[in-house]
């Protein structure tokens, strides 16, 4: 038995790569984290920068609502990103807008995670009529057209808070990921290791939380990232139509006011490019993170670089010892 134990030692660790990076890679894998690729790093850096801007920006910029009589002016030392038609500082608006959009994204992300997790995972695991009812409900929610419903609700309620918009967006957005989660849970609940823990005498809720849920984490993470993108874009769309939360500042409301103020026709690029760019960049960054998570769920997407493949080869010394062992 000693021989097989020896053979099962991870060979990559002693390969041609420096020991530090190999050890680090093994640790990341053990924690279930995606390998640090250029894609993931780019996504993390961009979204991290935007996140920091949204968190800390509002503390250092001017008051975004202060009206000045200088009117529409380009970038200057007093206003780094210029001003709007009413002389409001664009940089200040951008900082508050980032905070507003990210708040919506975070709220919707968490709510979607909870809703889709409950209806997708719990339903599929419980099985029987619970699953039938949950999945019927999910399917109904799935075919309700999202944007028209959101517009109807938004125009019906006169004084909308940020929370109401977030709630509406998550109510119309959770069904898709619930179906994805249900499918995956259905396959997990009949895996042998789940049966084995039933045979061992585990309680049902413990099987769900300890045996099944950890294996769903990558999927949950990617669904949540998608929900955040969906929410931020959805809120921007609503605000652009003038149906967003009243009194809030977000990337969408900035674009809305820029459109109203004829920014495009007046060539005031400093007014509409920053929020549009941040919106596109943040969406792209989250998608990049999502692709990296997808590679854990579906190893077929992993593209092995030449360097990684080279590390599978045995070194000359390993080959010699292997030869001795077989002789």
């Amino acid at each position, binding site marked *: *038995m*000693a021989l*097989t*134990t020896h*053979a*099962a030692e*991870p060979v990559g660790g002693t390969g041609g790569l420096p020991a530090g990076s190999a050890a680090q890679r093994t640790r990341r894998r*053990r924690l*279930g984290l995606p390998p640090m690729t250029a894609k993931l790093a780019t996504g993390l850096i961009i979204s991290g920068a935007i996140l920091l801007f949204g968190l800390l920006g509002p503390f250092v910029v001017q008051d975004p609502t202060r009206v000045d009589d200088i009117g529409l002016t380009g970038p200057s030392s007093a206003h780094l990103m210029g001003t709007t038609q009413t002389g409001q500082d664009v940089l200040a608006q951008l900082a508050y807008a980032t905070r507003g959009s990210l708040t919506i994204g975070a709220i919707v992300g968490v709510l979607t995670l909870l809703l889709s997790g409950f209806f997708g995972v719990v339903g599929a695991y419980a099985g029987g009529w619970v699953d039938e009812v949950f999945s019927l409900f999910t399917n109904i929610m799935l075919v309700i057209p999202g944007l028209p419903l959101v517009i109807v609700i938004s125009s019906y309620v006169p004084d909308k808070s940020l929370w109401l918009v977030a709630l509406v967006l998550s109510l119309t957005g959770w069904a898709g990921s619930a179906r994805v989660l249900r499918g995956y849970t259905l396959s997990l609940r009949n*895996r*042998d*290791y789940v*049966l*084995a*823990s*039933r*045979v*061992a*005498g*585990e309680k049902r809720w413990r099987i769900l939380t300890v*045996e099944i849920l*950890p*294996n769903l984490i990558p999927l949950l993470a990617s669904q949540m990232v998608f929900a955040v993108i969906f929410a931020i874009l959805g809120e921007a769309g609503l605000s652009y139509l003038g149906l967003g939360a009243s009194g809030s500042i977000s990337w969408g409301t900035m674009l809305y006011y820029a459109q109203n103020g004829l920014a495009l026709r007046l060539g005031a690029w400093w007014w509409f490019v920053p929020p549009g760019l941040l919106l596109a960049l943040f969406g792209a960054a989250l998608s990049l993170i999502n692709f990296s998570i997808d590679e854990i769920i579906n190893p077929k997407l992993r593209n092995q670089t030449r360097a990684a493949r080279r590390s599978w080869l045995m070194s000359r010394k390993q080959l010699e010892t292997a030869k001795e062992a077989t002789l």
Partner: protein
Amino acid sequence: MTTLTAEHLVKNYHLRRGLRGGTLRAVDDVSFTLEPGRTVALVGQSGSGKSTIAKLLLQLERPTAGRILIDGEPVQRRGGGLSRYRRTVQMVFQDPFASLNPYHTVEHHLERPIRLHQPKLSRDEVHRRVLHLLERVRLTPTENVAARRPHQLSGGQRQRVAIARALAPGPGVLIADEPVSMLDVSIRLGVLNLLATLQREEDLGVLYITHDLATARHFADEILVMYRGRIVERGDADEVILRPRHEYTKTLAAAAPNPERRLSELRGG
């Protein structure tokens, strides 16, 4: 000392084919007894109902008709009775690559059954038992193996972990569902010998489910041959293999590779 008896077990599955429904009888009137220290082999082709019997005995499925008795008492299906049953009847699954949770360490897999069935043990005590179990299935160095995750072990090592997990509650009956069919030929004998040794040490009653007549004859005292949900032949292991009476058993025996017969054919032809 546990005796597990199956009496006239029947299991029907309902099939849905469009609007019409159908019934598939996976297990049809099967009875047998598992006694301490004895091995019963259940032999049959794929789809003959072997694994369904395992699921019925483990209470993962409910029989349509028939009874399962433990020490002469009908088994209980919930509460403390089910918990006691889980302690006495354990299982080794077919596929060691699927039966261990990829997310958890070997220690977790062995620790849970110990904790479930002996909740009063201290943390150190549980850890010591885990190491002892690993030692009994010859996975050394034990501390090292306990900290590993399934993907860091070979197929044979994983199956040993699965055996250790089945032994963790201290069962009286072990159901082994094709325990070596997914393993490399070179390590099958090692795992089977380990099972046989542990059986002798613990005086376990073993139901060995397989489609391999040779290992069934080698390890079992009694052989049941299953065909389409029914037991078509049963008896002493050597008797069934050497003097098969039922047509299906003869076909099964003839299908097994037999180098001597082949050699004589070659010489003759």
